């Protein structure tokens, strides 16, 4: 086993994997990489098994020093990357030696770069996952974001990594549109909004506020009316409240009616705000790359469309994996 020396942690860099699934019933959110597609491609580029833990940075990436020869890859947000100060490509297999330093410039498009290292980040499993859950400080590297001076344990690489220089074709990389379209399935409490409010929810172009992190994204731009009713016992007086229910990851709640919040990987698992719909899992990858000041729109779809989109993402991921492994020969 060897280590990765963190020279600086960037703005907020955490260890993440596919997520802590199966613990929702005890109130434990899944955490895990917000953009699962970019995360998975990063692992493929260094020859890791799909669920190996990698680093998720936010806006400003970390500065990392290697202590042995490793494969490394950066995917996700569009940003400048350098090894020992020399520009290096993203969405490509890279090779580093002991003493080499990987550093980041500012993010041009998207919000979250992913860094996979051959062998994976070998922090201990917590409830079956290496993902960091920042709110309660569990999992990942001591339950927190990386800081200068940290030494991250690395696993032993298994199998062959794609040869250095192997690149992911342009059409299989993440995209960063000016307006991010988020498909959503209406429910569980969409009935609480007036028809006009539901219509305006999908007509309005919402802006991502500064309160946008792994817990959720707060949006601004419109105002939504609720159907007047006498609140049932346990729901509280605010029309935006219901009797408590579970919040699916991706659910959209509207406290007060004017600032929708999309709950994401580190969100609380239940509460009493009306949840008017759920952003489909595939589009949460895109939401992860929407940044503060960015714009999003919602498009209603049914569950079949959501499942089909998930199937398409799997096909796209298989294509990306094939593209990087084919060039190996």
């Amino acid at each position, binding site marked *: 086993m060897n280590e990765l020396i963190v020279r600086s942690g960037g*703005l907020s860099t955490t260890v993440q994997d596919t997520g802590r699934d199966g613990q929702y019933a005890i109130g434990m959110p899944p955490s895990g990489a917000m953009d699962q597609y970019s995360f998975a491609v990063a692992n493929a580029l260094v020859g890791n098994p799909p669920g190996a833990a990698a680093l998720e940075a936010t*806006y400003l990436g970390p500065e990392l020093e290697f202590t042995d020869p490793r494969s490394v890859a950066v995917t996700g947000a569009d940003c400048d990357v350098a090894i020992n100060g020399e520009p290096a490509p993203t969405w490509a297999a890279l090779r580093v030696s002991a003493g080499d330093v990987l550093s980041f410039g500012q993010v041009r498009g998207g919000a979250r770069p992913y860094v996979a290292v051959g062998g994976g980040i070998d922090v201990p499993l917590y409830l079956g996952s290496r993902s960091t859950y920042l709110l309660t400080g569990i999992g990942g590297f001591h339950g927190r974001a990386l800081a200068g001076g940290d030494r991250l344990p690395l696993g032993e690489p298994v199998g062959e990594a794609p040869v250095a220089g192997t690149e992911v074709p342009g059409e299989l990389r993440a995209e960063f549109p000016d307006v991010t379209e988020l498909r959503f399935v209406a429910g569980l409490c969409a009935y609480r909004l007036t028809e006009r409010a539901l219509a305006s929810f999908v007509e309005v172009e919402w802006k991502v506020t*500064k309160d946008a992190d792994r817990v959720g994204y707060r949006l601004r731009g419109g105002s939504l009316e609720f159907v007047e009713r006498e609140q049932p016992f346990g729901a509280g007086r605010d029309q935006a409240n219901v009797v408590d229910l579970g919040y699916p990851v991706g659910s959209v709640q509207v406290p007060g009616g004017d600032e929708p919040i999309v709950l994401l990987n580190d969100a609380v698992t239940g509460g009493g705000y009306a949840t008017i719909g759920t952003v489909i899992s595939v589009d949460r990858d895109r939401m992860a790359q929407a*940044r*503060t000041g960015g714009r999003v729109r919602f498009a209603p779809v049914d569950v079949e469309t959501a499942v089909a989109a998930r199937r398409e993402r799997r096909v796209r991921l298989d294509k990306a994996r094939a593209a990087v492994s084919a060039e190996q020969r």
Partner: protein
Amino acid sequence: MSTVEAHVPGVFYRRPSPDAAPFIEAGSVVEAGQTIALIEIMKTFNEVKADKSCRVSKILLDDGDEVDVGQTMFEVDEP
């Protein structure tokens, strides 16, 4: 003349707290590493530091203004 750009998107503040004096005024001479502004993002306040000694000739944003990555916040001159 050169400029200082934002490295993260968020909300710009000229002062450490609402009732405190601004970190700097137009015309202030600052040292490398000195804090000259804050950008609030993801519920945290990130310090904007001068990367070299210089004189800040122009402050282009006000408290509470939204700022995007790469947006110019200050114009500075060599002292």
